[in-house]
């Protein structure tokens, strides 16, 4: 991988050096230096020499313009690679972790709910009129069933938390999309003059709608997080209604 990157870097440098060399040689031709140094240029007849000079001048101008444009593109590629790495490595990796967390959370919740439903079905069986159990035992099973069903309702909080995790992941993907869009403009020749402005545009891409979800939403460590909240509210009496 590192060898590939090195080769690409070397290739870019080589291309740039070659273009500089070609441009230099053409400029020398245009200045007529080779003529002065005794290099023979075929006679083309009356006025034809001047026309060749003009053509060479036009060719040099075109090549110089092309060289500048290619230089701009090379600059864009170099800058863009850094931006892509920043966007892809940091942000997308975080998204990947979030999505893994969602998968884990939903799987755990589903398993927990299936366990709860199994237990509930067992309790329903125990409450059947035909079941060999005393009235007290049936009542106890009914209470336990109610508790289990309520626990299952509470368990559904995972939906709110995973929804926030998914919203965060979607926001990051949208941010990466914005960066890539900005990056593609770097290759647009009409925008070469405002490269700095475009880089600003690419860098300023932000995760959308952060206010509507908590990027750190998690089902983990609820007790310790609640303990921290309790600590803050004990040490920092709330202002407001004077309680």
């Amino acid at each position, binding site marked *: 991988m590192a060898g590939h990157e090195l080769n690409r870097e070397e290739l870019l440098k080589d291309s740039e050096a070659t273009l500089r060399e070609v441009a230099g040689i053409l400029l020398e031709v245009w200045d007529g230096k080779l003529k002065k140094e005794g290099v023979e240029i075929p006679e083309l007849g009356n006025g034809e020499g001047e026309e060749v000079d003009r053509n060479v001048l036009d060719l040099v101008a075109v090549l110089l313009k092309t060289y500048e444009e290619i230089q701009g593109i090379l600059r864009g590629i170099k800058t863009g690679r850094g931006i892509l790495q920043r966007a892809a490595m940091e942000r997308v990796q975080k998204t990947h972790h979030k999505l893994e967390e969602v998968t884990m959370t939903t799987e755990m919740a589903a398993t927990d709910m299936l366990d709860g439903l199994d237990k509930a079905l067992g309790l329903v069986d125990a409450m059947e009129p035909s079941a060999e159990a005393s009235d007290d035992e049936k009542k106890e099973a009914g209470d336990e069933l109610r508790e289990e069903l309520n626990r299952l309702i*509470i368990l559904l909080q995972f939906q*709110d938390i995973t929804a926030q995790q998914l919203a965060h992941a979607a926001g990051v993907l949208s941010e990466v999309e914005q960066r890539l869009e900005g990056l593609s403009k770097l290759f647009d020749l009409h925008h070469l003059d405002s490269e700095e402005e475009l880089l600003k545009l690419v860098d300023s891409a932000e995760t959308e709608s952060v206010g509507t979800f908590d990027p750190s*939403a998690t*089902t983990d460590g*609820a007790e310790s997080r609640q303990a*921290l909240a309790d600590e*803050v509210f004990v040490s*920092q009496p*709330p202002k407001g209604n004077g309680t």
Partner: protein
Amino acid sequence: MKFLIVDDSATMRRIVANSLQRIGFQEFDEAANGAEGLTKFDSSVEFVITDWNMPNMSGLEFVKALRERPDGKEVPILMVTTRSVKEDILQAAQAGVNNYVVKPFTPPVLKEKIDQVLDAT
């Protein structure tokens, strides 16, 4: 006692309402964000439970706006949210939240915090 439950997740609103019923409270109204919460809040509401991250108007903005209103200065407010960074919790306390519950919560924790707020008022 009438509760106003403000949360953008319909699932969470039902879970909170279910927990309140288990605790023994039967009357509540619901709002999907802070702006709707402000519209639905009136003098009949005796307790507010709000989430933080919501579209249109966040829970924090809602609390601040409510505390600015003459009829919302004294109402007890409980924030129920996934946000659990110390700075956020401090911010909520300073905005006028009376107590704080971290999601995912259990009904005993919800009851404990509601009781603490009611005891203090």
